[in-house]
């Protein structure tokens, strides 16, 4: 089971704060993005090719190529704007 979190404009657009799912074929961050994009509609737009999507695995910023494992917390969000 992995936990997926969405923040800021992503959370609002997707109307989803978090969800849990089985790994079933997911191996890295990129595969999670493809799966989410494949839902189509607003998911397809948020995760469209060329969109800037930042990702953190277990609360560490990482890249699409990062491997994932059971129990991971994967967060997607737009570029940060604090300070």
């Amino acid at each position: 089971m992995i936990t997926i979190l969405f923040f800021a404009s992503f959370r609002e657009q997707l109307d989803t704060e978090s969800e849990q799912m089985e790994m079933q074929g997911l191996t890295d961050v990129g595969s999670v993005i493809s799966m989410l994009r494949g839902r189509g509609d607003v998911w397809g737009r948020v995760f469209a090719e060329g969109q800037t999507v930042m990702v953190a695995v277990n609360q560490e910023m990482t890249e699409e190529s990062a491997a994932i494992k059971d129990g991971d917390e994967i967060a997607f969000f737009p570029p940060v704007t604090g300070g």
Partner: protein
Amino acid sequence: MNEIRIQAEPLDPNRELDLLRADNPAIGGIVSFIGLMRDINDDKRITTLSLEHYPGMTEKALERIVAEANQRWEILGSRVVHRVGEMKPTDVIVVVAVASAHRGEAFQACEFIIDYLKTRAPFWKKEQAPEGRYWVEARFSDQEAEQKWK
């Protein structure tokens, strides 16, 4: 001592500076950055700012940035305090204060911490203007500011 804190309550920069100053008599100087909420952005009048963050990751990201600053410069203490939730113009959004024996280290470390916070700490701003509410876009100039420390 390095203090990192996220809070919804109003932020008093003077109190943060007093606490940092009192922490260690070897401190010879403090440099601080105080980020304020402006009432204008991209020619829009902003009435309210909402700040969202990623609890847990925010603290970790800030700890990592402060740890890196401590590796690069001789720092005698620091305080990074960021506000979240709803704010009004003139409110303090963030305080970054760095203490060192001499000013050079503190100036550089303070700028480094705020530059990295801007691009690496998971905070997001949403502004309320008469035209509506919208998420603030990341600025390219913030990416450039981070690059200069590479």
